[in-house]
């Protein structure tokens, strides 16, 4: 009797879980289904679309790589803390996730605008954050950095303490413990974090639009085509961008899994 009841429960799980899954898949399938092929090819040849995809991918990639140098050491330090200190630091790291992204964009704009201290300092070396790839990068980094930090913290935290202690006991310096033991052991989590940060970066709209409408990143271009020409012209751009995002995500996923298998 017990197993039958359990099996009924399983059916309910399948039903509700399946609905949630369909909710994610259906809009994407519908978007692909509703797009006319000739319009899709024409959009793929559109120089504005190509330029926007290029700037979106390249800025997000460069931003992810640059900020990795700061995020990974921060994650390592957080993984060594405990109690309220860890909770406080993780809370601070999560701020960009919990606040609206347009508000995040306003916050970053205030920090790097031409009248701000940082903006003035940057302008002296010829860098402007307004309507420039620097601004796009700053906005993308602000909203996507937590994904890398949180994933890396989890990875570093899972390393048994004795492995690091053994390395110290065998004569390794703090840097050698990090570079030869901790980072290689946490590499899958760190790599996943990098993928998440990159993916979050390329899909950002709300924060970027506050700093840089131009050069136009693809999420803004989709919005622009929608408001100017309607759904029919926005959809092909969205389809192409989604396909590229999925391809990049799949590539990184396979790479991460290969690394995991090799490890």
């Amino acid at each position, binding site marked *: 009797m017990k197993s039958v009841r359990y099996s009924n429960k399983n059916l309910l799980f399948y039903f509700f879980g399946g609905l949630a899954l369909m909710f994610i898949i259906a809009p994407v399938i519908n978007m692909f289904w509703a797009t006319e092929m000739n319009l899709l090819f024409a959009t793929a040849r559109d120089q504005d679309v190509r330029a926007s995809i290029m700037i979106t991918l390249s800025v997000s990639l460069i931003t992810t790589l640059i900020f990795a140098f700061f995020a990974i050491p921060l994650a390592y330090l957080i993984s060594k803390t405990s109690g309220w200190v860890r909770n406080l630091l993780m809370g601070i790291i999560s701020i960009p996730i919990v606040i609206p992204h347009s508000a995040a964009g306003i916050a970053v704009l205030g920090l790097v605008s031409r009248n701000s201290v940082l903006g003035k300092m940057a302008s002296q070396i010829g860098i402007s954050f307004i309507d420039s790839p620097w601004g796009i990068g700053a906005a993308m980094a602000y909203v996507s950095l937590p994904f890398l930090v949180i994933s890396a913290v989890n990875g570093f935290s899972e390393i048994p303490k*004795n492995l690091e*202690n053994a390395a110290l006991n065998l*004569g*390794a310096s703090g840097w050698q413990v990090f570079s*030869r*033991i901790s980072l290689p052991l946490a590499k899958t989590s760190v790599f996943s974090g990098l993928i998440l940060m990159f993916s979050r970066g390329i899909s950002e709209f709300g924060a970027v639009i506050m700093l840089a409408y131009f050069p136009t990143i693809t999420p803004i271009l989709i919005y622009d085509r929608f408001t100017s020409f309607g759904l029919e012209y926005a959809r092909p751009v969205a389809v192409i961008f989604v396909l590229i995002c999925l391809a990049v995500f799949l590539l990184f996923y396979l790479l991460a899994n290969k690394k995991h298998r090799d490890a």
Partner: protein
Amino acid sequence: MLELKNVSIKFSGFSLDNISLVVAENEYHMLLGPSGSGKTLLMNIIAGFQKIETGKIYLNGADITHLPPQKREIAYLFQDLALFPHLTVFDNVAFPLKIRHLAKNEVELKVMKYLDFTGTSHLKDRGINKLSGGEKQRVALARMLITESSMLMLDEPFSALDTSLKLDLKKLLKKISGLGVSILHITHNFEEAISLAEKLTVIEHGKIISSTAFKDISTLLANQFTASLSGERNYFIVKDIISTADFHLLMLSASKNSDFSMPVVYSGELPEKPATCVIPGNQILLSSTRLHSSARNHFEALVTTVFRTENGFELELYPIVDAFRNEEMSFWVKITRLSYESLQVRLNQSLWISFKASAPLIF
């Protein structure tokens, strides 16, 4: 030589109290204590992973109390072995040399030397996760030995091994102790301790109870706690002694407050102030009828508990006094499977206990 002087540390609910310990040059020193007695904490203090509040730690005369772990030069075999799972056997053993930037051929020569020593050279290209428990143990020992430290610390190295692997490891540890190193080995197992120890220190609740050279190891039984660690449960209080020309009659009780005393004949030398008596379980004979032998202690007893052990059975028996079962004092007896079967042991069965007048150990 490793020396700890008055080392103390306090946590909420646990403290290491004024620990002083000396591991002499080339000495195999066992630290014996039950789980939670502070053994591993003491290891972590010596290795530098845990700071102390008071006290000093010296290695070969140099004060290392405040040195960071990587500068202490004390090799440590962790209980979980702490082999690096992302490295091969070769790279694990080569780790201490690679981080010191030794030349490649020198690294290779030394790694192969210690892999050969521990009998693991054929595993050099294997990943750690593809090794058995015994192989991992040997690789971890090779990695520890390659540091060529004069002081080695082993944390419960036998804990995850089966009987045959334990024997192999004992042989390997004997071989290592012949390399001219000092070894501090912690364990909760008395048999493991006495099989390797040249000196045995017993720790309980963060305090050192005793520290004894192997030749005096039987004196450990004087303490009820260390006697219980050794597996000897026939620990009694000597309430009174009646001496005659050729023997002493000991009046033994289970505890100081017990009114019941049992007479036992003892023919050995008495210490100055006899206080406790241990009758080793393997010195007691069981029979279904009274034995006619040189043993001078005979009494009838009821079997109340039977345990299987590695080598046979362990029985708890309550002596029958004036045709009634005494409820205060019991004897634990170790017997072989053969004896168990020939006696056809069952609960509440009446058997005869016999032991020689020389069997009791008096402290």
